[in-house]
């Protein structure tokens, strides 16, 4: 019982702490900040439980696995919150158009390269997955390591480039 309760309690505490910090000041590197906040809460939580001898060593490990599985899920969802998905934007705009319907050109005119592609290129450079010398974008070693599992998986299943 303690595994479930403490794992969820620590996660909820870290989540609300992150919400408060985001309301006060949005960090420049949100992912790094999230990793720091959630890891700190997990560490402090485990120290608290250890000091009170509330769990066995196996339960500590189980709590950590539960906490970090919830955290990784949130981290993945956060990137969907942070960057708008074009599909979701299209659906929302189509819904707003109501009974009149949304003309095809309206979407193409409003969602251009400067909104859909250029910010993602900038993200790749900021994440240091791609090097940019002012003219040429070039994938670096970190970028190659990052893309490898995606390419391996998609090649194994015979899937195309996606996008």
């Amino acid at each position: 019982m303690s595994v479930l309760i403490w794992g969820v309690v620590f996660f909820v505490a870290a989540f609300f702490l992150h919400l408060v910090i985001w309301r006060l000041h949005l960090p420049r590197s949100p992912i790094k900040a999230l990793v720091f906040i959630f890891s700190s809460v997990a560490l402090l939580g485990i120290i608290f439980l250890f000091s009170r001898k509330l769990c066995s060593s196996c339960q500590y490990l189980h709590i950590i696995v539960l906490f970090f599985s919830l955290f990784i899920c949130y981290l993945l969802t956060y990137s969907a919150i942070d960057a708008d998905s074009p599909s979701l934007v299209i659906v929302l705009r189509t819904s707003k158009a109501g009974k009149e319907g949304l003309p095809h050109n309206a979407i193409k005119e409003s969602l251009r390269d400067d909104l859909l592609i250029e910010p993602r290129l900038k993200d790749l450079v900021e994440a240091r997955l791609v090097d940019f010398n002012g003219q040429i974008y070039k994938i670096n070693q970190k970028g190659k390591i990052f893309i490898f599992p995606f390419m391996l998986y998609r090649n194994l299943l015979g899937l195309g480039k996606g996008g």
Partner: protein
Amino acid sequence: MAYFNILIPILSLCFNILTQIFSYKYILKKKLLKSEYLGCLCGFIFLIVCELALGEGSFKEWLFLVFANLIIYACFSYCYFTFINMGETARRIRLLRELYDAPFGLTQEEILKRYNAEEVINIRMSRLLNNGQITLRNERYFVSSPIMLSISKILVLMKLIVLGKESEFEK
């Protein structure tokens, strides 16, 4: 045996992955989404069977432990689902693939020739039309299924709660 309990969601995920890949290639005629659902279901059944086989201690303790492992497995499955979908739809992954295929790098113009907003919109539109999320009548699009719309509204709500704005396109 208690330590083995922690491994059960991880083993269930492995079973999920193997079933998903096998069913995609050999059973479901390359239907990606259906293979993801089948893999997830098989992993879930594997987890329940393992928990029933290893069940020890009081029923209440066992039930809470199973519930904790179900949450961990659901999280792992969600991560795997996202991994597959990122490869399928994420713009950053597609851009990295284009750059991977160009050992000497690319200028922004060259990148936009290979992958641009028009292609993104065309791919998304055909996907939404094929999945029945939107319909096309008289050169105009209409929402035809509430599923994507509901997901979009939930994400907008989460954006408002976490970031305090509705869209990254907001100025």
